[in-house]
């Protein structure tokens, strides 16, 4: 599903963000990307949805080379990739249902599809009761659920999560992880960058560890060491 071949990304030549990374991720895998701040986790994720291009090397998503993808095709790549972030990135003036619907509206989905899919996904993330609340009226965990709903409503092949539990207390984080696990079980490949030792050790999934831009460990059912 995702393949990196000898990928190096330099923002400036003296300290590359990612050095000679080669990774192969199968469909339906759940992968933790761990490492300290600045180790290259976010760069790794940004390379997968073509927010960045590698300086050298190849990136394949769903069997397609995405480095050479022309810019007008990039949106179609991204329709297959859901993204969530530490800071949720919700639109403050739209309510929960509108935030989720927005993701479908801007890719031109018909109204009857939106009216059917938005309640279904809100039910999945457990926010049916709060669909008319504004983001500011929700807790951090609930806001992250909205952002997951928005990322997943279009049923992407891949879900990229950059520190999704970074702003949440441990109990709330567990709830978010359960949700991501459920999404993963539907066959969606999940790549999650995290600092959270407890989560990694509890879930026991594949772990890719980055130090100063190099992959130093790639272990099935790994722990946070």
């Amino acid at each position: 599903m995702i393949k990196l071949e000898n990928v190096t990304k330099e923002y400036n030549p003296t300290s590359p963000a990612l050095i000679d990374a080669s990774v192969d991720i199968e469909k339906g895998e759940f992968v933790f990307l761990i490492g300290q701040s600045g180790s290259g986790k976010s760069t790794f994720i940004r390379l997968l949805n073509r927010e960045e291009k590698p300086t050298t090397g190849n990136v394949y998503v769903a069997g397609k080379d995405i480095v050479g993808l022309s810019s007008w095709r990039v949106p179609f790549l991204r329709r297959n990739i859901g993204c969530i972030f530490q800071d949720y990135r919700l639109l403050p003036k739209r309510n929960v249902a509108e935030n989720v619907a927005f993701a479908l509206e801007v890719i031109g989905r018909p109204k009857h599809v939106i009216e059917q899919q938005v309640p279904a996904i809100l039910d999945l993330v457990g926010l049916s009761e709060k669909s008319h609340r504004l983001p500011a009226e929700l807790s951090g965990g609930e806001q992250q659920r909205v952002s997951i709903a928005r990322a997943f409503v279009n049923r992407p092949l891949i879900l990229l999560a950059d520190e999704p539990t970074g702003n949440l207390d441990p109990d709330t984080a567990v709830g978010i992880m359960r949700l991501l696990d459920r999404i993963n079980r539907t066959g969606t490949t999940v790549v999650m960058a995290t600092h959270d030792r407890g989560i990694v050790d509890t879930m026991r999934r594949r772990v890719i560890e980055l130090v100063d831009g190099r992959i130093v460990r790639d272990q099935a059912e790994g722990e946070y060491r």
Partner: protein
Amino acid sequence: MIQKIRFLLAETGQNIWRNLALTLASIIVVGVSLSLFGSSQLVARGVDNATRRWEGGIEFVVFMRADAEQSQLDAIEAVLDESTGNEIDSWVFVDKAQTFDEFKEYFAGDQELLDTISVDTMPPSFRIRPTDPNAGAVEALGSTFEAKPGVRTVVFATEVIREIQSNAEKISRATLWAGVTLLFASTIMILTTLSIAIASRRNEIEIMKLVGASNWFIRIPFMIEGMIQGVIGALIALPGLAIVRTYLIEDFSKSDVLRLLEGFRVTDAEFLFISLGVLGIGTLVATIGSIFAVSRYLDV
């Protein structure tokens, strides 16, 4: 498809609403610049029409001295009568009182000037239409009057027309440059308005990119917003042009001061052509501003 269009229009409406003051300012600048631009074209057309009209009936005016004696006037009249039917087609005598009336009308606003003059200081004149309209022939004929007793000067209509022409050309050129400069300013205004609209919506834009909205889907609301500014600006310029045409140009030509401005008017066809041109330029300016704004500030 209808769904998409509705969404894009709603987005555009929201952009404009959030940014209303700047959008209005931008529309006004477009409107004013296009009014000036259009006016310069109207004046140019008017001058063309006036001078074309005059090619067929060149006149010259023999101005007598204010203190010319009746016998001197009679002498000129006798010469004119003699030539009528030969070199001269027709002629009119304008006496002091008529000249004074015209003068008063012409300088109606300037009481100070009117106080310093009187009927007695006005030069009487003969307005002459020669048989041969050729400029050389007119000049040859006119200059024969210059040396006659009591004659102050001979003014050829061609000179007057040339002067009107050059003055109108100056006005036309000045308004054209003001219009072009303001059009440039309009482009920058539209550009700035759009860059602010884009900046104020950067969160939405970021999410649109993230979930895979196509590049055009992101750009179109801003482009429509720019186009609206240009087109509405042009639409408010059109009544301005109609006013210039009616009150400045047509009324000017109706005033019978010297009757030299006769024919200084703009035909309906010309007005339509200029109006369409103004609309076209407004759209063009908006298109340039919009394309520049989305390609520069909207990094999709």
